[in-house]
């Protein structure tokens, strides 16, 4: 799990002075350095892309990232690798689970965060502490009791055990993120809303929620990516091949006890990266927009 980039609380904007034009030589050197670093970082992805177009014999024998003999056969092979189910089914399942996870996380975590940051109620600090502690619990400690509970519900082999917790604000990390963000929003705005006759709900919907957009976008991006890439939960709860998600589908290509079909696996991995990439692309702009509007004039 990589450290997420926390959305910084919006501060007053300092008008950046335009730097003086540097020499062309220095700029070129600077750009060259950055390009080299980017290449190092992106190399595995390039290798993966190249490998997805290699014939099977070439994958294990050549170290070149690009293929000598191009073939597109890996894509249909990977798509139809499993008996009775195509990879498209896995994509559909992953998409359903990920979108539901994003909706659930945003809806439940923002409400919980509002309560923690703005409402006064008994046991608030105890509950807040309890919530933060759940971040520290390793998932493998929770999985067995959770499995037993969901089995009682008869939810095994459905999407429910994966989606339902997201609607119950179990993602403590996102609550914490939003709480910190909401605390940064001046209370004077709440007061003004109350003067104008808003109750706690309207204050939340019309005042606080629009102002915490950067935190919401950040949460949306990360909950989508984490759910899309999550393997263990989906593996444990989904039994039928028809219910499998993309990560489980990809893992079916790698089996130490039999053969590994690298070509189709890389081809499908490339396809699996696309939605995450597009999702990030679509929301990243909003993230930058949101960070620059703090709701305060002047």
């Amino acid at each position, binding site marked *: 799990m990589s450290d997420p980039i926390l959305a910084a609380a919006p501060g007053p904007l300092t008008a950046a002075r335009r730097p003086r034009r540097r020499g062309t030589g220095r700029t070129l050197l600077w750009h060259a350095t950055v390009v080299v670093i980017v290449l190092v970082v992106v190399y595995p992805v390039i290798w993966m892309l190249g490998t997805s177009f290699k014939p099977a014999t070439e994958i*294990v024998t050549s170290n070149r990232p690009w293929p000598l003999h191009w073939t597109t056969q890996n894509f249909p092979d990977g798509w139809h690798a499993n*008996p009775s189910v195509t990879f498209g089914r896995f994509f559909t399942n992953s998409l359903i689970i990920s979108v539901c996870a994003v909706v659930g996380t945003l809806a439940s975590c923002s409400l919980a965060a509002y309560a923690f940051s703005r409402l006064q109620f008994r046991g608030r600090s105890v509950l807040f502490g309890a*919530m933060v502690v759940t971040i520290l619990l390793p998932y493998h400690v929770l999985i*067995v009791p959770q499995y*037993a509970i969901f089995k009682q519900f008869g939810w095994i082999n459905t999407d429910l055990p994966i989606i339902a917790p997201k609607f119950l604000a179990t993602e403590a990390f996102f609550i914490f993120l939003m709480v910190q963000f909401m*605390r*940064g929003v001046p209370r004077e705005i709440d007061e003004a809303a109350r003067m104008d006759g808003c109750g706690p709900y309207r204050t939340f919907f019309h005042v606080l929620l629009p102002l915490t957009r950067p935190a919401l976008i950040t949460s949306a991006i990360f909950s989508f990516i984490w759910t899309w890439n999550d393997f263990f939960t989906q593996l444990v709860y989904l039994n039928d091949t028809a219910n499998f998600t993309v990560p489980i589908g990809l893992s079916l290509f790698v089996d130490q006890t*039999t053969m590994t079909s690298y070509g189709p696996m890389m081809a499908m991995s490339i396809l699996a990266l696309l939605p995450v990439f597009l999702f990030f692309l679509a929301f990243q702009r909003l993230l930058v927009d949101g960070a620059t509007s703090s709701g305060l004039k002047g």
Partner: protein
Amino acid sequence: MRSRARTAGPRRSRTFRAAAVAVTVAASLSLTACGSGSSGSDGAGGAVKLSFSWWGDASRAKATQDAIALFEKANPGITVTTQYATFGPYNQKLATQIAGGGAPDLMQIDWGNQSQYAKSSTLLDLATGSGTVDISGLDAKFVGSGKDGSKQVAIPFGQATQGFVVNEAKLKSLGVDVPKAGWTWDDLAAFAKQVHDASAGKVAGISDPGSTWPAFQSWLVQHGKPLYAPDGKLGFTEADLTDFWAFCTGLRKSGAATPANVTATLTAGPAEDPLAKGTAAAEWDYDSIFASHVAATKDTLTLVPLPTVNGRTGMYAKPSMLLSVYAGSKHPKEAAKLLSFLVNDPQAAGALGSSRGMFPNVEVRKQQAASATGNNKVVSDFEAASATLLSATPSAPPKGDGQLLTLMQRIYGAVSFDQQSPAQGAKSFMQQAQQILAG
């Protein structure tokens, strides 16, 4: 954080108390995981629904589903739902299912987990329990591997035997003869040195077996010692391991075996190990992995039995997988019936082909061997030729066997990079191994 929530009372003790409460709550939550339940759901009208899970790839899944379709046709009252995943994830999932009380009726288990699951009464006794399996047609020596004490908790499927996978094409081009059955370790050392010299040091004769835990086991059996004593403790002494590692180190230093940095790639699996990369001409492995080795190289490969000590090869029939019935199953009779079908019925053998290795029923296996082609023929010929060389199959390894396997890789890594002498390495191995087995 400009406006902090207003709370009464001293801050620190509050937070501390909150954390303490939270920990207690979390702890009590995880204690309520009581695994009582059973798998499978009752269909309406007396129809029985079974669930069956295994690890493997898509081709194994297809073959297994074909076999199950035949079973369902022969038993109209039973429907079987299947689940499969690849080896590592499968075992994680199975452990969770067993702990959470939702294991499948029929499951494929790894020999390394057998004793652990048997001790926790997860596996049905298939000899005297509520569902029984016909094992009269199976090799008794081999079936013994599925026993835990006096209970037959699993039926082995897929016989694997240890040997050397040899790159025939490479040896031909170097002008070195392929070793023959009945060779000794001295012959091996001479052969490996010959390969090294003939290739001007480019190719080692063998991949260094010093980091391979089961290779050490064969070596021990040849010397008349078990890997594990009956009580689950180590069955060998520090001196035995020192001897083995000293022998491997001799090979490595002369160039007959792969150097340390190449040996380390053995863990990458058949697709990327020294044999696939062409840096070694032979490698210790199970014959069940033969097809994967073939897929990873353009050269023709063959199998050679292990070198002997006093006429003993130390090879034995190892189950590459076993089938067990879940003790909490609602339909143990039907699950056992399916298991019986899968290990005995010629129709099942026809559908499964070679996707799970050698078929357990001896008669059916003979028929299969007669019509085998390609890699399967190489393996089944090798099995047939080695049948007389096998020692008795030991009982299932104790819990912790998997950790010892990685411990051996780690410590021999240090030995092969000359950070430790074989004797020092053996000493630290014994200490840590005893801790692992006691824990």
